[in-house]
C-alpha cells in the first residue's frame, strides 16, 4: 500500500494551508509516522477559528507476548522454578527487564544464552508469565501520534479540544472558543469520506 494515499489540507487561507501542509509533513517525518497514517484530511479556518484533523491509521503489528517467541515450561522436578526457552534473541533484553522488575534480580538465572530460570511457583505463575506483554509497538506508535498531533501540529492557542482515538482512526477538533456542534459534524463527515475512499 502507498504511504499517505490521501493528504488534503483545506483552508480558506491558501498560503496558510501550504505552510500547514509542510509542517505536517515535517512532523510526520520527524516522528517516523509516515507508515502509520494511511489517509489524512485537515481542515483549518482561522477566522472561525477551528482546526480539524482526521486520519485513518495502519498500526501494524499487535502486542508481542512472551509465548509468541519463547517456550514456557516447568523447571527441574521438585523445585519451584519456571524454565523459559527463548527462540528469538532480539527480545531477550526487554524480557529480562520485565522479569527483573517483577520477580527481582536475585530470582532470575541465565544458565545459557537462550535459557532463563525464574524462581517462582510454576502452578500460580506459569500462565500469567506466558501472557506477559514484552513489546507494545502499537501503543508506542499511538503515543508518538498523539505527540505529533496534540503537541506539534494543532496551533497552540487552540486549547479547547475534542478527540477520538481508536486502533483504526484518529480525529481531533480544536478551537480557541467553545466547540460548535457543526464542527464536530463536519469532522465526522470528513472521517466518513476517508473511510469510503478506503473501502472503494
Amino acid at each position, binding site marked *: 500500500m502507498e504511504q499517505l494515499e490521501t493528504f488534503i489540507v483545506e*483552508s480558506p*487561507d491558501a*498560503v*496558510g494551508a*501550504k*505552510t*500547514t501542509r*509542510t*509542517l505536517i509533513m*515535517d*512532523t510526520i517525518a*520527524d516522528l517516523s509516522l509516515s507508515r502509520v497514517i494511511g489517509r489524512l484530511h485537515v481542515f*483549518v479556518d*482561522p*477566522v472561525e*477559528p477551528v482546526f480539524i484533523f482526521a486520519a485513518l491509521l495502519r498500526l501494524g503489528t499487535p502486542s508481542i507476548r512472551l509465548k509468541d517467541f519463547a517456550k514456557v515450561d516447568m523447571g527441574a522436578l521438585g523445585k519451584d522454578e519456571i524454565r523459559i526457552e527463548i527462540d528469538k534473541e532480539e527480545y531477550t533484553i526487554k524480557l529480562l527487564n520485565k522479569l527483573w522488575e517483577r520477580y527481582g534480580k536475585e530470582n532470575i538465572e541465565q544458565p545459557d544464552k537462550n535459557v532463563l530460570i525464574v524462581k517462582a511457583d510454576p502452578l500460580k505463575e506459569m500462565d500469567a508469565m506466558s501472557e506477559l506483554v514484552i513489546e507494545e509497538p502499537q501503543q508506542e506508535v499511538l503515543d508518538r501520534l498523539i505527540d505529533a498531533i496534540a*503537541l*506539534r501540529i494543532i*496551533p*497552540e*492557542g*487552540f*486549547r479547547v479540544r475534542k478527540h477520538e482515538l481508536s486502533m483504526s482512526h484518529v480525529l481531533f477538533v480544536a478551537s*480557541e*472558543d467553545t466547540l460548535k456542534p457543526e464542527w464536530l459534524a463536519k469532522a465526522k463527515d470528513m472521517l466518513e469520506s476517508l473511510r469510503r475512499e478506503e473501502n472503494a
Partner: protein
Amino acid sequence: MLEPVMYVGGVYKHNHMVELVEDLGGYILQKNVMQTEVVLLMLVPINDIAIVEEKAKELLGKLTRAPLTGSEIATVAPTLAYHHLPHLDCDVAEFLRKQGAKTNMVGLARGVGKRICQLTAYERDLINEHDVAVFILGNYEHCIIEKSKRLYEGIEIPVVVTGAPELRTEDVPNATAYVGNFGRILHHMRHSEELRTLDKLAEVIGKVLDDIRKEIAKDPPSVAPPRIKKEIEEQVQEIIDSLHPLPITLQLNGARVKLPYEEFHEHLENIKFVEGVTMKEVAQVLPSKMRDFILIKPRPKSETGFVI
C-alpha cells in the same frame, strides 16, 4: 557618527587593521579567529571609512557594512514549545547573531492564541530593554493581524513581525516592519530560498536599526556605548572573570553589564573618564530586568551639555 562594519580576512597581519581602527577612534567589538580566517566586528568613524577600506584591500580582506553590529535584539516566540522551537526561532536568533547582533530569546508565558494572547508586565519591561523585538508568528493572515492588535501593547521599541503570508507592513497593526515567507516552520532553514528569507529579515532589521541610529544622532549620548564598554573592561577587574556570553553587551543606546547590581552599581557609577567626568555624570546605572544585571543608559547631550 560610528559606522558598523565587518572585516573578514586572513589572520596574518590582521592586527594592522585592529590598530588602525583603534587609532582612528573606532572600536573593535568582537574578534573571532577561525583557523586561518578572522572576523572583526567594528565601529569605525564614518568619515574614515575610506582609509579602513584601503587597508582591507591591502590585506586582501573584505569589508562589509554590518548594520546589526552592536545591537541587542529580542526574538520573541509565543511560547517555548515544540511549535516554535528549536527550529525557526533558533534559526532566526542564530542568523541574526552571525550578522553581528546579540540576540536574546524570549518565550512568553501566555502568548498563544489570537484572542487570548497576553504580555505580562515583566515580559514587556524585559523586551523594552532591547533595541528591537522580533515577534515570530505563524501561518495565517487573519491570526497575525488579530494578534498584532493586542500583543505588542506597551512595547516602546520597534517591533518586527514575521509570518507566512506576504503582507504589507501597513496591514499589520502596531508593527514597525513585517517580513513574510516565514510561518511556523518545523525544519532547519537551510534551503536557498529560506536563506534568502533570512537575509531579507536581516536587511529589514538593519534598516530599522539605521533609523534608530539616525534618531539617536539628532541628540547624541554624552558618552558612546562602546566607550562605556572599553572603560569598564579597563577599570572593573571582575568583568574579565565573568563567564556570561558577552559580559558587556552593547546596545545602540546603552550597555548591559552582566554583574550583580547590588554589589557593583556604585563601583560602576564612580568609574572615571580621562576627560575628568565620572560615569554617573554622563550615564544612568540602572538595575536590569534580566537577572540581577546592570543596564547603563547614557544621558543625552541635551541633558548634560557635552559629549566626551
